[in-house]
């Protein structure tokens, strides 16, 4: 199945079902409880600890992953609804042992202290670069019909779904700015 396609299938009576998905390029077939979130599936069933659990209620962004290329919160995504999808975590952005430009610029610009929010920040920044590249506006794009400009104000607003308890925001904005300019 290709990303974006959904297989419809008849209901199973029980609360458990088998799904197939790809995580950071690896295919998985897993038997999943209907209550399982994608975040818990990654961490507890697949053993991929890149995405972090902060609030578990959609309020912090630590669990951000790319689902079929778009940034989403894995703590509010039910695993069963991810059947046939492609999931990318911050760890999966590295290719052939080479850091992704965003990973490298987070290191270069002190974009973290404790690092707990970092995988979510990096996935969110990857989503941001795609959205910005597509010309999508943000709350600070004025007027809203105009093409957004690459400014710190735009970067901050677009990263506002990711909270950092250490307050590494200045480094994060600088890191995203540089990675965006390299593109």
């Amino acid at each position, binding site marked *: 199945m290709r990303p974006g396609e959904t297989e*419809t299938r008849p209901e199973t009576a029980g*609360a458990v079902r088998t799904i197939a998905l790809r995580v950071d390029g690896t295919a998985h077939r897993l038997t999943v409880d209907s209550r399982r979130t994608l975040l818990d599936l990654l961490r507890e069933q697949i053993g991929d600890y890149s995405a972090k659990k902060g609030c578990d209620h959609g309020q912090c*962004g630590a669990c951000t992953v790319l689902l079929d290329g778009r940034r*989403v919160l894995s703590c509010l995504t*039910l695993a069963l*609804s991810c059947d046939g999808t492609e999931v990318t975590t911050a760890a999966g952005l590295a290719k052939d042992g080479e850091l992704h430009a965003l990973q490298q610029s987070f290191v270069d610009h002190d974009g973290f202290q404790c690092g707990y929010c970092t995988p979510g920040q990096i996935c969110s920044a990857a989503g941001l670069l795609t959205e910005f590249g597509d010309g*999508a506006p943000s709350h600070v794009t004025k007027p809203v019909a105009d093409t957004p400009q690459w400014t710190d104000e735009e970067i901050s607003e677009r990263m506002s*779904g990711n909270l950092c308890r250490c307050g590494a925001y200045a480094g994060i904005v600088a890191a995203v700015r540089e990675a965006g300019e390299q593109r």
Partner: protein
Amino acid sequence: MKPFAYGKPATTAEAVLAVAAEPSAMFLAGGTNLVDHLKLGVARPDRLVDVTGLMSTEIRDDEGGLVIGAGVRNSDLAADQRVREQYPVLAEALLSGASPQLRNMATVGGNPLQRTRCVYFQDVTTPCNKRSPGSGCSALGGYTRHHAILGASDQCVATHPSDMAVAMAMLDARVHVIGPSGERTLPFTDLHRLPGEHPERDTVLEHGELITDITLPATAWSRRSAYRKVRDRASYAFALVSVAVGLSISDGVIEEIRIAFGGVAHKPWRAERAEQVLRGARPSDESFRAAADAELADATALDGLDGGNAFKIPLAARTLTAVLRDLTAEERDR
């Protein structure tokens, strides 16, 4: 989280039947509100019917207006060039809500049906008439900063949290629904209810009714429109007060005008009294103030442990005036 069955039907008809057949079954769209409520124990369905694969994700032109599928993600709706040019208020409202990740998940069908963010509603250890009818309202005498100043009852003083819905109510949007007894269309302003004696019912939808599309009319006043949201931090926070306005001006007077408030009532609050004052009036600070006064004449503040919410009445008036000033900067009497 209580165990539940999960299904992903192939057609809307099957989805409607599946929910209608079971009193506690629910539709699942983006999940950004429902999955949270499953975790909190606020929602306890026996079955989830996932409609994300089958709702339309199309935004289509129709008689100069737009038909928006219920499966369209909030981020995609806000990015649509037709929406940005013809209905800037809607793009601005969407972009002021939640975070980019949440907007990538949230759908046009699910957003207006998200439930109140009243903290007592979300905390199952406290009494709440909306969650469990007859148990009482913990907000009365509690924290009321985020609660209603208009249209509340002694049963419930919660506000509706959606930003998109405020723009939709202002835009004279229409909601298309398919349910166990067929299809119907209703004005968006009729979708939500005031609490009255039944705060547990947020909307007029029957169990099993599924929103399929929302239609926006083609109008001149929607092009000159704006959304302004006042909140406790610059981003990623719900509105204390928000205002959506669209207007047209002819020969120096306001020809058509639509106004709606968010954060002040149990539903998006269409400000028809204020509209009436301004229709045919010259745009001026005096007429703006008169409009705000007319609309807020019945507003009632709540006491509260946090100092209550009396501040919202002048805040709503000033926010309305500020949006009107922005939208009429060229023609305004000074």
